[in-house]
């Protein structure tokens, strides 16, 4: 299965697969950030691959100068019983990636959560609001530079 996915993706999207990682029998592909919507659509609609379910979408702060953030897409093919992880790398200066809600509607809340926690903007998202934190909150809690104990005064108490 792993070979078929790689072969098909390389054929359809040449130069879009930037890196391939295999660890504990799990396949992770780092793909081009600008091609993520097309790749997801292809993976979902291809009759042989049929990755019809998005299980998880989340962000990672790598705390590096270049390509600080990662967004990863955990796809599942119900027919083939196979999981595939896609990753895109995002630079802090251009903290944006295209939303895949048009392909997988379940990505809606996952993307809102990622925006809430990391401040990554998802282009063309239908309703990009914070998921857990209050609307007025200015920080992004899961970034590595946000302290564990929080920032004093960042959550004002309601006025009487």
């Amino acid at each position: 299965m792993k070979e078929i996915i790689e072969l098909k993706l390389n054929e359809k999207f040449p130069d879009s697969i930037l890196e391939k990682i295999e660890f504990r029998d799990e396949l992770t592909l780092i793909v081009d950030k600008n091609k993520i919507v097309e790749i997801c659509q292809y993976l979902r609609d291809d009759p042989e691959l049929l990755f019809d379910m998005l299980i998880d979408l989340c962000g990672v702060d790598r705390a590096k100068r270049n390509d600080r953030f990662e967004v990863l897409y955990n796809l599942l093919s119900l027919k083939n019983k196979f999981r595939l992880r896609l990753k895109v790398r995002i630079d802090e200066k251009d903290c944006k990636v295209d939303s895949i809600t048009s392909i997988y509607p379940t990505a809606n809340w996952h993307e809102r959560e990622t925006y809430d926690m990391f401040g990554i903007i998802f282009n063309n998202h239908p309703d990009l609001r914070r998921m857990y934190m209050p609307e007025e909150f200015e920080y992004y809690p899961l970034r590595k530079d946000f302290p564990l104990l929080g920032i004093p005064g960042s959550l004002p108490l309601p006025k009487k």
Partner: protein
Amino acid sequence: MNTQQDKSEYSSKILETLLTKESDFIIEDTLESGMVLNMGPQHPATHGVLRLLIHIDGETVVGCVPELGYLHRGYEKIAENSTYHEFIPHTDRLDYLAPLSNNTAFALAVEKLAGIEIPKRAKYIRMIISEMARIASHLVAVGTMAMDVGAMTVLLWTFREREKLQEIMDILTGARFTTSYTRIGGVASDWTSICTEKLKKFISEFPTNLEEIEKLLNTNRIFLERTEGIGVISKEKAIAMGLTGPNLRASGVDYDVRRAFPYLDYENIDFEVITYSEGDSLARYFVRVDEMKESVKILRQCLDKLPSGEILSHDPKRVLPHKVNIYTRMEELIQDFMLINFGLTPPVGEIYSSVENPKGELGFYLVSDGTGYPWRCKIRSPSFVNLQSLPILVKGHMVSDIVAIIGSIDPVMGEADK
């Protein structure tokens, strides 16, 4: 007194988005005008602190916006700042109706990341506790769902059954809810003969008791009319919305992590994956009841096959030793000191490991940078994803159906808010 202008300034952005969103609602009659109803966060039928903003026309729901975050405790941030062992007690507080299966899920994820093999006895104990947690959680789901639509007796009867399981958990782990029972590389304490005895008694009585509970509901006209055809979600839509667990299987999708990606020793256990095709609230109830029967089957097989032997794997650099040995022997004390202070150090890498929880697929995505602390721990909680389809399910139904639909989705806010 605030003026009208001030009030509009204070009205939240959520309300604005809700009101400006396009819907097929037209004001024709002044008495039938649309309004926004705020349900929760403190509402008994929302099973926790779920807040719903409901746009209604008369009594028909035209739109619904769930608001989460009232129980957000930042577990993913806590995980990044604690060792792998330290995070186990926090997993109890995710899905607090089935803490034992959360413990199992996290321990399995860390073991996959670090490459630790666990003894066979520990595997079977973990399977037993997972199935016990499943029965306990489904009993609450069925009971509260029945209570939401007006049947009080069912709740009392299901809680009576659940109490028997809680007693076994109490004997086994020393706590009824905050169990923290699994360890990386095994389980904390051994399964005893008293537990076997009590569990055998439970599984011999439970099927008849469950039948009695079913009799209260399956032919109950009020229950059937409140749930049949309410909150229907099609197979394709359910997959697209990422539903998992009983909610997905009620829509006719044959996906169960225990069968699709077997973990522990589930490939050697004979059980059926329950599916119904209707996709309504009633089907979700049927799936839960039938799954309890399957869990009894699994428990029976596990008790028959339960092997003897160690419950913790012998791996001094990564697995905590037995508590007795820590207090009486020098080497074990040193191991314990090193593990508690520096943590186990898995190799650099990342994994996703998931189990079939009562609510759906609970997954942990762990990234290790080679130190004792996880670099990133993402919790893929089933309730969070299942709740997302609530607006689709309630659209077009009556206000009173909302409670039946929430009851049939069975969300736990501890898990949805993380």
